[in-house]
Every structure is written in structure tokens, then in C-alpha cells.
């Protein structure tokens, strides 16, 4: 169970907003990237949030560039999960690859307001709004992605199994 506060954003928050190129292309240090998380919309975002908070966003979160630095910046800034109405494809893959939990709920921005406390259950794919007491079901995550979610990304997965999810005889 994850518990934290929601930071709500609009539709189409793209990766140029999440971390501009000129910052992300000049470092390989995730904590340095984290200083610029959500820079395009709120330059103080990394200072405002507490470790374990969530991003809640509209449709097509993470569109545009393939930059893995985008989910890395969010993760190392302290964001514990992103819940959005939908995700852009490369960002979606990148989150599983690096172990940032993400969930899709089609109308989540109508059911969560800025600052609401949320309880996220990654085993059952539910998000509970502790303010409104409403529990929302997210799209289930299955197959390889579920293994990556459980083991927090490819690097951890590989270190543990010495193989990739599709080559492991019996995934966990």
C-alpha cells in the first residue's frame, strides 16, 4: 500500500515539460535530473512535494520524446506513482523499465482534487481517495509488465534472475 498526496495536472503533460532537454542531456545522475522534475509547469515542484506523493494527470501523460530521464526525474524527486487518464507509449514503457509504478484510470482528474490523500494498492490495482472515500479501479497490469512492476524495473529484475522476463522459465 502506498499513501501520499495528489498533485494534479492537466492533459498532455509532455516529456519536454517533465524535464527540458538542456538539463537532462547534461547529466547521468538521477538526483540531478530530479531537480528539474515538472520544470515546464512548476520550477519549485521538487521542493514542494514530500517523498511518497503522487502525480495525478489527464490524458496522454508523458507524450513526445523517448527520454527515460522524465520518469527518472519524477521517481528521484520522490514521486511514488503516477495515476493518469492515459499515457503516451514510450513513457509508459519507460516507467515499467525503471520501476516507477503507474496506473490508468479514465476519469481520475474528475475524482481527485489537488492535495487529496490517496491510498494506492498495486496488488489489486485500486486507488482510494481518502478525502472522498471513493475507491477507483485502475486498468489491470498483466504479463511481463506485472513482473517488472513487482521487481521495480529491468535492472533489478535482471540482477535477481540473470535473465529477462521472457527468457525466465517461470516468472515470479
Amino acid at each position, binding site marked *: 500500500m502506498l499513501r501520499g498526496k495528489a498533485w494534479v495536472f492537466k492533459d498532455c503533460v*509532455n516529456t519536454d515539460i517533465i524535464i527540458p532537454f538542456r538539463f537532462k542531456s547534461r547529466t547521468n545522475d538521477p538526483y540531478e535530473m530530479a531537480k528539474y522534475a515538472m520544470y515546464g509547469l512548476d520550477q519549485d515542484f521538487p521542493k514542494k512535494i514530500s517523498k511518497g506523493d503522487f502525480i495525478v494527470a489527464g490524458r496522454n501523460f508523458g507524450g*513526445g520524446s*523517448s527520454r527515460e530521464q522524465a520518469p527518472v526525474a519524477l521517481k528521484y524527486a520522490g514521486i511514488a506513482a503516477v495515476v493518469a487518464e492515459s499515457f503516451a507509449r514510450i513513457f509508459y514503457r519507460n516507467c515499467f523499465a525503471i520501476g516507477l509504478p503507474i496506473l490508468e484510470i479514465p476519469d481520475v482528474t474528475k475524482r481527485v482534487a489537488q492535495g487529496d490523500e490517496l491510498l494506492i494498492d498495486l496488488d489489486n490495482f485500486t486507488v482510494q481517495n481518502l478525502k472522498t472515500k471513493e475507491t477507483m479501479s485502475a486498468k489491470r497490469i498483466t504479463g511481463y509488465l506485472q513482473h517488472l512492476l513487482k521487481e521495480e524495473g529491468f*535492472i533489478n529484475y535482471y540482477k535477481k534472475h540473470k535473465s529477462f522476463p521472457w527468457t525466465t522459465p517461470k516468472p515470479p
Partner: protein
Amino acid sequence: MSSASTILKNDGLTFAEKAISLNSDGEKIHRAGDIAVVNIDWAFAQDSSGPLAIKSFEEMGIDKLWDPSRVLLVIDHTYPAADEKVANLHSMIRKFVSKHGCRIEEGNISHQYVLENIAAPGMIIFGADSHTTQAGCIGAFATGVGSTEMAIIWASGQIWVQVPETIKIKLEGRLPKGVFARDIILHYIGEVGEDGANYKSIEWYGDTVKELTIDSRACISNASMESGCKTSVFPIDEVARRFLKEVDREPKYVIEPGDRSEYADEHMIECEKLQPVVTGPDTLETAHAVEEMSNIVIDEAFIGSSTNCRIEDLEVTARILKGRSIHSGTRCIITPASKKIYKEAINRGYVDIFLDSGAVFTNVTCGACVGTHLGVLGDGEVAISSSSRNYIGRMGALTAKAYLASPATVAASAVEGRVADPRRYL
């Protein structure tokens, strides 16, 4: 199990279904929605995704590339290094390349280099860069991933992929004067939105396609990514065959998409009705006809990027700038997409025309497209650009505004110092 020839002949499969089925173990038929593990023909990263891929590769403790002859590192985004932080990441790439004996290319934009030197129909090409979709212009299945997934491909030659649903787009009618491939794709994205084709494969058809050069197709396959698509493909035809002959390359598979396939969506674009398009600012979801935008005064006109700076783009730019001057108070920056294009621009005399007009002609780099060097926007500045995206802060300051258009519209705007209709100059 099916043989390659039965898959190729199956009229009920889309391009994406055939490409993935042919290139995954066992040649089982995979249909839209299935998860498959594909075998990769080529895998590349650039100087911003590459260092993080190298880090992931080394953190996994893997010490060997699956096949160094199919792994390419390209230094293109901030080339040559604009500062010491970039220089250090570039040298990290060079060290990795010399340790593993894989390929490196410096000072060519990856997608254009891959098209000119590597891509062939039926190949599976993965790049740690979103615009990898460009190689769909000659019938490759080409798509972008992030750095860690690139590291996994480097290690194993494989990656998981969900077989995409397909959107079929038919282009009909002659393109009017002043309307180009970029206008078609900006118009399409304006209609369907930045996620209009999310996770999908786009297949392009219709009479107009026959008239589109490889340069124009490359622009469309590249810029389609802004609709979220996984791949954007022109099925192989005479134009593609002529290109392959010129570069002396054979197809891996000649994939004819079935016409009894099931599509997620079908569109028809009547090209003869299109006008030059100007998109933005901040989003590609607002596409306007150029005349609605003519009151916008610009500080910078950028003709560059893998999206729109091939030789036909420089040809139309030269036609417009010949004998004219860039408007005072406006800067015009022209950045070709490859060294081959750069040389051709010199040979054809375009560079003289550019310099005489007052434009800057730079080396090959992503540069201004990503606001990293050679044309970064300052506070409150306004740009019109042929590059890929106009997002907040992409080309520089957060308060700058960028509009996207074809190179012809950008060149006409450079002359007038405000958004201008290229049809007056052609």
C-alpha cells in the same frame, strides 16, 4: 508455425502484424493486441539517451553486446559538444564504443543517417529516440524506446512489443502549390490530437502517396510520432525501389499489407483542399491555416531537424531566399539533417544563397530543435520552425513561443519577419 512466405501472402494481416510475425521466434502469426518478443535488426541510441543506456547496461553487469555490428551510437543532439558537461557524456559514449567495438557516427542526425545508410524494408529497427519512426518511410518496422530498454536490446537482441492496431490513412488528390508533406501531417495531428494514434501503427495509401518523394515520406513518418504512433509506414512501391537501387540495398522482406486486414480506424485526407499549416504554440493540437496567423511577429526562423531539413526542404528554402534578405530583427538558422545533405547544399549553390540572404547555415546537429545550442530562444521570444515540436520550453525559455510549419512557410516568414504565406514566393 507458419513459413515466411505464408505470412507474407496472408491478406488478412496488417503491415505491423506481418513485420512482427516474420521477425519473432518461430514465425508464429501475431495479431494486434498480442505480446511478442521481436528480434532486432538494428539498435541505436544518441548522445542524450546513450549515456543512460550505457549506465543501465553496466549496472546490470552485462559485459558483452549481443552483436556489435548491429549496435550504433550517434552523437547528434548537441554536436559538437556545447559545454563540458556534454563533452564528458560524449567521451563516455566514445569509450563504450571502443570497448565493445560497435558502430559510432558523429555529426549526422541519427534518423537521417539510418535512412541513408542502414534501413531496409521489413527490418525491425529500434532507436532510443522517439522519431525512429522515420524509417517507416521505406517500409521498416521502426520505433522508439527508452534507454534501459535499449540496454536490454544491446544485451539480448530482443525486446517485448505489443502488436499494434493499425490506422489506415488514404491521401487523395494533388497537393496545391505551397503545400507540402509537413502540412499533411500537421493537419492530421491537428485533427486527431497528440494521442490520436497512441500505440497504433499508421499505414499510408492513396494516389498522392505515389507523388511523394522519399524525403517527403521521411518527414511524414518522422512527424507522425507526434500523434503517439508506434510506427508510420509507407508500403514498398516504385519510389522506394528506386531509392533502394540508388543506395544499393536489398529489402529484408517485401511486406505488402493485406487489404482484408482489420483497422482500428480509417481516414481520408483530400490533399487538394489543404492549405499551408501553422501549428501552435505549446501544442500540436491547434493547427491553423497560415493566413489566420499572419499577424505573429517572429524573432527566429529555424529550418532544421530530422523532421524537415532534407535536400528538398533546402531546395524550396533556396528558391524562396534567392535574391531576398532575411527581415531585419529576425534571425534565420538553417541546420541540415545529414552531412550528405550538407554537401549537396554546397554543391547546388544553396549555401551561397542562404549566406547572401543573411541566414546562418550551421553544421549538422539537433541544435535549436531541442534548445540545446545554435539557436536557443530567450525570454518571450517567438519562433517559427520546421522542427518536430513546439512544447513549452522545448526550444529555450519557458516564456518563449514556437510555431511549427513547413520549411517553405518558415523561409517566407524569415523574409517578412512575421508568419507568412509561402505561396506568394513560389
